[in-house]
């Protein structure tokens, strides 16, 4: 990119120093040149850091390559893919992922929309409190996961204390992270804490995009509040809600940092989502070929979702 900026500088100087008619000709030529000059560095960077590695991953996924060993690379065809798709452990981690994605997105959507609806009542000070609510989603998921681990400590943690304070359950009678049935919920709670503001913010934009005259017309028709909500508010905010749902779905499908620090997939494999399995296979078992195939499978799934996401994005944009 230093190269291209240098060229841009030269072009500028040339254009600035040439007499008017000639400059116009250069200018006429250069629009196209500038366009490519401006786009090429970004594309080259993405090709080098994203696409080339992706192609390499595809190649590796058909081999028995192990990154920690200097053995000859052997072509194995689609063996890894058939192995993965028939491996009960992979299906287990897919189930864990599905549970995590479904519950986080469902809870975040309900609370997020409710909050947006309440904030849209435009009470005094809503701007300040909206900013306060947004803070968790700006934080580092890894650091958040780490400090929630502290809050979840069975003996000393604030979370257990809070639960026992309000329900009377003995605080040492349950462990959020250590318990097989509670651990999946421990990650859901943290994700909801962190990302509900995200859904709220997008829903709020949806609610504010509804023109007032529609409500006024409904008022003239004497539609009840309930009716107004179901036939105006919800349908008109729906594209925005969908956008938030899709994005949270994609992000949580890939979720790694928060869970890695909170539970590292444990206890056993009860919270082992797809990304954790992938990390284990790739960077602990060093089954590079196998994990490349798994990475490609995950990537195809995310790419499909992303496609839908961009379509939804464009629909919202037209509003």
């Amino acid at each position: 990119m230093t190269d291209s900026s240098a060229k841009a500088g030269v072009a500028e100087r040339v254009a600035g120093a040439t007499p008017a008619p000639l400059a116009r000709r250069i200018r006429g030529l250069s629009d196209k040149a500038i366009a490519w000059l401006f786009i090429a560095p970004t594309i080259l960077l993405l090709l080098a850091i994203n696409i080339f590695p992706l192609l390499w991953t595809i190649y590796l996924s058909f081999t028995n390559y192990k990154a920690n060993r200097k053995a000859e690379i052997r072509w194995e065809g689609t063996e890894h893919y058939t192995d993965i798709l028939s491996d009960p452990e992979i299906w287990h981690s897919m189930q864990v992922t599905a549970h995590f994605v479904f519950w986080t997105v469902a809870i975040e959507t309900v609370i997020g929309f409710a909050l947006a609806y309440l904030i849209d009542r435009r009470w005094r000070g809503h701007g300040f409190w909206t900013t306060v609510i947004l803070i968790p989603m700006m934080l580092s998921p890894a650091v958040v996961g780490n400090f929630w681990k502290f809050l979840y400590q069975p003996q000393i943690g604030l979370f257990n204390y809070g639960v026992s304070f309000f329900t009377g359950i003995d605080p040492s009678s349950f462990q959020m992270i250590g318990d097989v049935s509670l651990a999946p919920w421990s990650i859901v709670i943290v994700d909801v804490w962190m990302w509900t503001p995200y859904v709220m913010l997008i829903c709020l934009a949806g609610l504010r995009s509804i023109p007032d005259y529609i409500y006024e017309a409904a008022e003239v028709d004497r539609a009840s509040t309930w009716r107004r909500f179901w036939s105006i508010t919800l349908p008109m905010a729906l594209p925005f809600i969908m956008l938030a749902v899709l994005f949270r779905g994609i992000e949580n499908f890939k979720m790694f940092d928060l869970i890695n620090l909170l539970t590292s997939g444990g206890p056993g494999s009860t919270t082992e989502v797809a990304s954790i399995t992938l990390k284990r296979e790739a960077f602990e078992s060093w089954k590079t070929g196998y994990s490349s195939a798994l990475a490609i499978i995950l990537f195809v799934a995310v790419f499909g979702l992303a496609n839908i996401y961009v379509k939804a994005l464009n629909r919202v944009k037209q509003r």
Partner: protein
Amino acid sequence: MSKTTAHSVVAPTPTARRVSGAIVILYALITMIPLAWIVMTSFKTPPDSIAYPPKVLFEPSLEGYCNLFTTRSRQTPEYLESLPAPEPGCDAIVRSRNMVIAGPSNVIPRFTNSIIIAFGSTFLAVFLGTITAYAFSRFKVPFADDILFFILSTRFMPPIAVAIPIFLMYRAIGLSDTHLGMILLYTAVNVSLAVWLLKGFIDEIPREYEEAAMIDGYSRLHAFVKVVLPQAATGIAATAIFCLIFAWNEYAFAVLLTSGTAQTMPPFIPFIIGEGGQDWPAVAAATTLFLIPIFVFTILLRKHLLRGITFGAVRK
């Protein structure tokens, strides 16, 4: 803008407003408890931090911060007796635990790494993003929609899936655990966001400004630098903050691709260990210091947050 007068017919009743406000404020306060707890824990002594029931009132101490910035070694009482009186501050706190300060910890180099990598990658991503966005905004680029989709799609790649080949590639060309390697990687991730956000911002600047400048004899590039860039300054700043936050917070690549020289704060914080497990006040102190910039950025960004998280699609 059109709210008060036109909205009057359907405006919520004062009671509805008050109740809504109360519920939202209650939610906000509850979600702030974990953060407040971390800040409080950073000022506790290790025994206070693991006391049961959890201590809300405690005597503030800087032990967490002292432990964060130093490494310490335990000494025999006789040896401690033989030392001159401790200087007030960290020295005295550490001495009261029968230890002496052995040297500085790794936290400052890690913090520096975070700053270098975050700012380096942000600068590059915003630079590339600005010129690319300008090109897409002003020129007819063949397959523009497809290229834009390609640029955005790279953002959706699962980080671990990308990390496998990047790890091999960096190992082969000597970029593993280097600042340059991490900067390039974060630039690649952020540039997609930068292009999409900045395209939105530049689309909003009327073309007439540049056209007028070009009629006055400016070249296209001159007009871009002198007219478009100043107009896009707010957008560029907002984009830069988004890129900074991403790079600052990133963990997956950092933990897999760095181990020492270029390690940033997120993979470092969980491994701040005291005697007998995690030293929670020190961890909390690191977390507090790490989060302060984010608080500042969130407040600076609040008007542009929505745009940032929707890749520029939803304005307001």
